[in-house]
């Protein structure tokens, strides 16, 4: 809360500064309304169940996202950004901030180097999919499992410093970027991934929002996780230790980009405050995007890491390795004029969690794969109509704790109207 007040004070003072310098305001966003038919568990992960979609088994009409981003930009390269997102369905009702930060983007110097920096609450640069307004996914309705997780548990309060070397000014065809962030308030990240596994949705956790955990025996009386709160609060600072994120990107204009990054929240795994544990979570991520031919783009991401949470006596309670990767192909139809309004995306995913600890009543193992097929049609400049099929086949022993099948195939068919403004 202290941080939020700080940001508000900064925002207000910036509005006064605004009186002195000319500023430009930009308001953009998305409204995404969906009708879905879901074949899954009776309780979605978002509702404290084991279902891998944000919606439970059945038919739904939902506001999958109502997002708005406001930017105030000054001529000196400084800008202030606030992103609000709302989600509404039968089991879910939330509205609040997802990001709020100040950004500075300098001009390239005579050697072709540009400095950019962000300060505040923001997503570390990881997702290649969620680059539309308000962190919406551009080519599919449900984000990949990697980016669904980023949206759920990875958010930082910190500062990011990025240097870009522009190839154009150095007689090179490519641009290079290096960035480093130092952050706090992401210590419980990893808890939700351990306890409900990988998921697929377009839901983002709001800043200060808590998400429920599924039931498993270790949470019961006398269990190793008796002291764990019923809801995880992923954006907390528990031990006052600063985490970091590093990223390098190679970009070939007109062709594509390749990036590599490493995240480590440096949380103390045996510290617990109000039932929220520190989870020492670290992972590396690889990403590539390549334009194979006109209209055809290949996007791929891979993430691999480890998370550790211990008792106050420093015994491992949860020690997991996790990995997920996807490859997607997007085609913008353009052989004929009318086809330009159509795009098709096919995404294949693989995911796993490996449980390395011996805690009774808390099996976190998981293994599975997923397929997504999306077709979108641009009705008018700002209106898109999308149809998407999601298929997830997973093996997850923890489902047995609530008497569900360990091996489960989940399916979702969704029709969406998306409006960008």
């Amino acid at each position: 809360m202290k941080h939020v007040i700080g940001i508000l004070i900064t925002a207000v003072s910036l509005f006064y500064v605004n009186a002195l310098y000319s500023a430009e305001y930009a308001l953009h966003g998305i409204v995404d309304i969906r009708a879905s038919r879901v074949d899954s568990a009776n309780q979605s992960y978002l509702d404290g169940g084991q279902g891998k979609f944000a919606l439970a088994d059945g038919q739904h009409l939902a506001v999958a996202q109502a997002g708005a981003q406001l930017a105030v930009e000054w001529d000196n390269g400084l800008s202030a950004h606030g992103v609000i997102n709302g989600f509404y369905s039968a089991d879910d009702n939330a509205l609040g901030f997802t990001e709020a930060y100040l950004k500075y983007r300098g001009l390239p110097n005579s050697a072709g180097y540009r400095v950019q920096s962000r300060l505040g609450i923001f997503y570390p640069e990881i997702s290649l999919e969620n680059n539309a307004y308000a962190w919406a996914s551009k080519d599919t309705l449900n984000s990949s499992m990697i980016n669904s997780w980023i949206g759920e548990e990875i958010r930082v309060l910190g500062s990011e410093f990025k240097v870009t070397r522009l190839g154009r000014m150095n007689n090179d065809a490519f641009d290079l970027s290096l960035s480093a962030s130092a952050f706090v308030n992401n210590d419980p990240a990893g808890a939700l991934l351990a306890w409900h596994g990988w998921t697929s949705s377009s839901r983002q956790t709001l800043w200060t929002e808590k998400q429920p955990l599924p039931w498993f025996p270790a949470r019961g009386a006398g269990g190793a996780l008796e002291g764990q709160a019923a809801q995880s609060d992923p954006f907390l600072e528990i031990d006052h230790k600063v985490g970091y994120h590093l990223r390098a990107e190679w970009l070939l204009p007109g062709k594509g980009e390749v990036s590599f990054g490493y995240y480590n929240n440096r949380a103390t795994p045996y510290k617990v405050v109000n039932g929220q544990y520190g989870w020492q979570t670290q992972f590396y991520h690889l990403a590539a995007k390549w334009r194979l031919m006109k209209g055809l783009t290949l996007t791929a991401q891979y993430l691999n890491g480890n998370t550790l949470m211990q008792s106050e006596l420093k015994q491992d309670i949860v020690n997991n390795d996790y990995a997920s990767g996807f490859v997607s192909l997007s085609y913008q139809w353009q052989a004929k004029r009318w086809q330009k309004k159509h795009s098709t995306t096919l995404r294949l995913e693989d995911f796993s969690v490996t449980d390395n600890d011996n805690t009774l009543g808390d099996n976190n193992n998981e293994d599975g794969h997923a397929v997504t097929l999306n077709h979108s049609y641009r009705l008018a400049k700002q209106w898109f109509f999308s149809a998407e099929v999601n298929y997830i086949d997973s093996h997850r022993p923890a489902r047995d704790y609530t008497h569900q099948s360990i091996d489960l195939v989940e399916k979702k068919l969704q029709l969406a109207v998306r409006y960008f403004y």
Partner: protein
Amino acid sequence: MDIFLNSKTFILALSLLFTALAQASTCNKVAAEKKQLMCLQVSVHSHTDKALSGMVVYLEPLDGQVLTKNTNTLTIAQHNKSFEPYLSVSQINQQVNFENQDDITHHIYSAGSDNKFSFKIRAGKTSANLLFEKPGEIAMGCNIHDWMSGYLLLLNTPYFAKTNAQGFADFAVSEQGSYRVVVWHPQMQAANNRMVLTKQLTSNDKVSFTLDKAMQAIPKQESDDDFDFLSDY
């Protein structure tokens, strides 16, 4: 077969001759129309002898000839998130306007030059009355759209042109004397991206340039992602 080949060669030669004559006559016409003394026709060809269009050609007086000042206004447009034209040329102290024809803001800057500038230009607006005092070439970029790339060449002469589709640039010249004839293009693989020769001008004349090496690819001013609702710059 021989006759056919010969007649074909003959027709080709004839047509080349006619083109050359037609070009020469346009050059003379240009001089006559502008009531100038003489015409210099410059032609530029690639290393494989193909006509090169869009090459900047300029003449610099070497004998202290006093030349008129170019008083035209140069407009550099930002259109479809690209600089149009890619290459702009102006005489120093000539008025330069930047015209944003897009519905978004651009942040134009000069990359490493004696004529340093940077400004934001809002949708549909024109930044007018820019004057550049120093000769030189300015590589321009947009700090919001990194793929945008354009050049402004500032010269201390009113004699500049770009070659046409046939590779010709015509100059109606008023003062006799010695001139430095320069061909410039940022993608020309030569020292300072230029070819230079000196020409004594007393009457209608012609010079031709043939590049030693292939031109480098002109950068495509195109976004990697043309989705209209991207969040970041």
